[in-house]
């Protein structure tokens, strides 16, 4: 088991190294950050001064080495736009993204559970179909559209919930719902098929023969077994939620990683772009690692890629 973890860790590091080169090149390909921070009437001399001051005139290899060398110690450089250490910006924004993603997972599970259970128990009927459609709806509407409609009507007109910002539990509801609905379909599908499989299995047939109440069969036995794949996929969905929340963050003015990345890209802020991509990659890699380890624990066949 230890060997497995060790190798997976090594693999993740290699992937991250590849990614660091890619993102370094991509970030610099976006253009010149100086156009954004220098005023419209800056002269060529102003540009040269600023470039030297910010270390942007060093050879690329040196910039890359500096970037990687410092990243290992957690120093992602200084934001060109904000002139503050990127690590501080990350510290401000990452928790917000994690919290929103966690809440969205909760919402998603809260919706997927009843839908999945109902669909499995009433398999093949209209209820099953309806549940499927409700779940899939979340993936069939553009996220920003759902978000804006919710803001306009639920927050603006009906005034039931806050429209934006990250203040207090109530402000999590609309963005969390918008984000969570997107992954409900996948979760519900897993639950449904997981439950169907279990409900058909020998184990449950035996329980029924023994006279266990149907309710107990469904809620205790079947659900318990169907949960395992859902729980492991929840981890992956969580990583996806963190990394794709940019649209929700924009509409709800949620100060998270997605918006930080967007601002970084539009202002050609290389250190920020590099840092956000690396951090999300690390997050995704970490989650994948955990999931793979959990699976390896459950099923030894996977330990060596078989």
């Amino acid at each position, binding site marked *: 088991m230890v060997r497995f973890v060790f190798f997976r860790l090594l693999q993740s590091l290699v992937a991250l190294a590849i990614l660091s080169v890619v993102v370094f090149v991509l970030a610099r390909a976006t253009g010149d950050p100086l156009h954004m921070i*220098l005023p419209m009437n800056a*002269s060529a001399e102003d540009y040269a001064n600023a470039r030297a001051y910010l270390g942007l005139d060093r050879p690329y290899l040196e910039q890359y080495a500096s970037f990687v060398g410092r990243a290992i110690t957690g120093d992602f450089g200084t934001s060109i736009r904000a*002139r503050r250490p990127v690590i501080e910006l990350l510290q401000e924004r990452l928790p917000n993204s994690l919290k929103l993603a966690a809440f969205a997972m909760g919402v998603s599970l809260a919706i997927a559970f009843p839908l999945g259970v109902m669909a499995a128990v009433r398999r093949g009927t209209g209820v099953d179909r309806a549940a499927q459609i409700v779940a899939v709806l979340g993936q069939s509407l553009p996220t920003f559209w759902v978000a804006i409609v919710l803001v306009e009507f639920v927050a*603006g007109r009906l005034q039931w919930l*806050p429209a934006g910002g*990250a203040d207090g539990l*109530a402000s999590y509801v609309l963005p969390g719902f918008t984000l969570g609905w997107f992954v409900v379909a996948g979760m519900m599908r897993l639950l449904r098929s997981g439950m169907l499989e279990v409900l058909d299995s020998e184990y449950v047939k035996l329980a029924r023969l023994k006279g266990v109440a149907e309710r107990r069969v469904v809620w205790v036995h079947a659900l318990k077994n169907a949960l395992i794949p859902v729980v492991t996929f929840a981890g992956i969905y969580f990583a996806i939620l963190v990394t794709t929340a940019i649209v929700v963050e*924009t509409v709800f003015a949620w100060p998270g990683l997605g918006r*930080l990345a967007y601002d970084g890209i539009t202002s050609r802020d290389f250190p920020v772009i590099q840092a956000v991509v690396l951090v999300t990659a690390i997050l995704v890699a970490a989650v994948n690692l955990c999931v793979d380890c959990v699976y390896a624990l459950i099923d030894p066949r996977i330990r060596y890629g078989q």
Partner: protein
Amino acid sequence: MTTTSRIILLSLLVLAGMASPAWAQTKSELTVALSSFSAETVDPALQGHNVKYYLSLMFDYLVGTTPEGQPSQAGGLASKWESSADHKRWTFHLRRGVKFHDGTEMTSEDVKFSLQRAMGKRSTTGYAGPLRTLIGDIETPAPDRVVIVTKEPTLIIPTYLSRSLSTEGIVLPKKYIEANGDDVFARKPVGTGPYKFVEQVVGSHIKMTAVDNHWRIGVPKYKNVTFRLVPEETTRIALLRRGEVDVADVSRERVKELEKDGFPIHMRKEEAVVHAWWILGPDGRTPPTNDKRVREALNLAIDRNEIAQSIFGGYAEPAAIPMGLTWAFKDVGFKVTPDMMYAYDPARAKKLLADAGLAGGFSIDVYAFQLPGFPEGKAFAEALAGYWEKIGVKSKLIPVDYPAFRKMWVDRKAPGAVGYYNIANRDWIGAYALLEKQGYTPSKLNDTVNDPEVDGMLAQVMRQTDREKINALMRNVYTRLRSEHHGVPVVFVHSPYAASKTLGKWNPGSVMYDLFLDELARK
């Protein structure tokens, strides 16, 4: 009751408990929602444009400005100033007893330090360049007197150090910055303004709290002021409806909806001019826009009234002078006469093109991008392209974002292509500074005009100290820009700011990049 129904009921109860509309802010809080904080820095030496909205609450300027843009002896840290007869020594008399937020007293040493810092290498403010070339020395003969010695005679010093332009005139605490360094200052700024910095979350908000008593505002009416960055307009408006926000910038297209619901709209009239121009080639204008008739034709093809009414919802006026700014016209006595207004005359435009040998039309690239304060950017570009298509000019829309366009413009890699900007209105000194960068061949990078006659006139303005001569020169510059069609001035736009119903009276003023929100705090 089934488990499922129990869960649903419980969730509804929890939601109901959490949802409580935030009633209109208690008088002690003022919240402002803006679509952009531009560079978002709280250090005045780092980009001085859009950020004045919140900087003007935490800091004071050497020279004050009234909301109408006139220098004010009551509004700045200098209660009076005068120049020597040769206009090379400017003496500023400072107020006594003004304290920084950290308790230290403001003296001439702080003014000297701040000015040197604003002109230093690290500074990226708008007018640092001209100040660097002009200012020779800064003397501090007394704690309440600063003398600025310039290399050439000039009139511009008080205005350049005032609230009406950028942030070079902001006075910062020398001891605090020298002791703690620029980085700490950028995270915990200290000034002399009516509000003290509390916290900033980049990309989210800036919070500040009132000082006990301010020399200009008195006891501030609002205990706390928060600026929130809310990029999506629907959300800003929802926040306004919910009473979570007292002031929000809104787009012109949603003004009617808000007025119908009773929200007061404060218009900053002619806040900016939407001006389009052709990118120059490495040596100046390239065919076909080097032909004056073509430039005139492209101007005549546009229906400015229709654009003003439709794209800008009626909150715009046709503009006539390339790079012309009405607040500057007032200062220099320039009158826009009816014959200067471009008529909507596609027939004449086509004839002009034929005269120039282009009866078959030609191709032009139009860059399309959004800008802060100008959400209609892309629609505007599409409209321009549409008008030009109708006179046989094949217009290709190239969507970019502003930094990408800026690069094309400054690198001169796309000669003849069209770009635009919503140029903030400003007084004559600011207008001159704009022309000196965007209409002056020796300034290289940003030039959009390349006209030796204009160059000559602008060069003289800098050296003049006679107001009458300056005014005459500026008038001639504008006349020439118009007669040579050195650009496509389209409309002046009014900018709406929606306020909550309980905000009360507010004059956002007509000063570039400033909303005079601190005046709201005056009891």
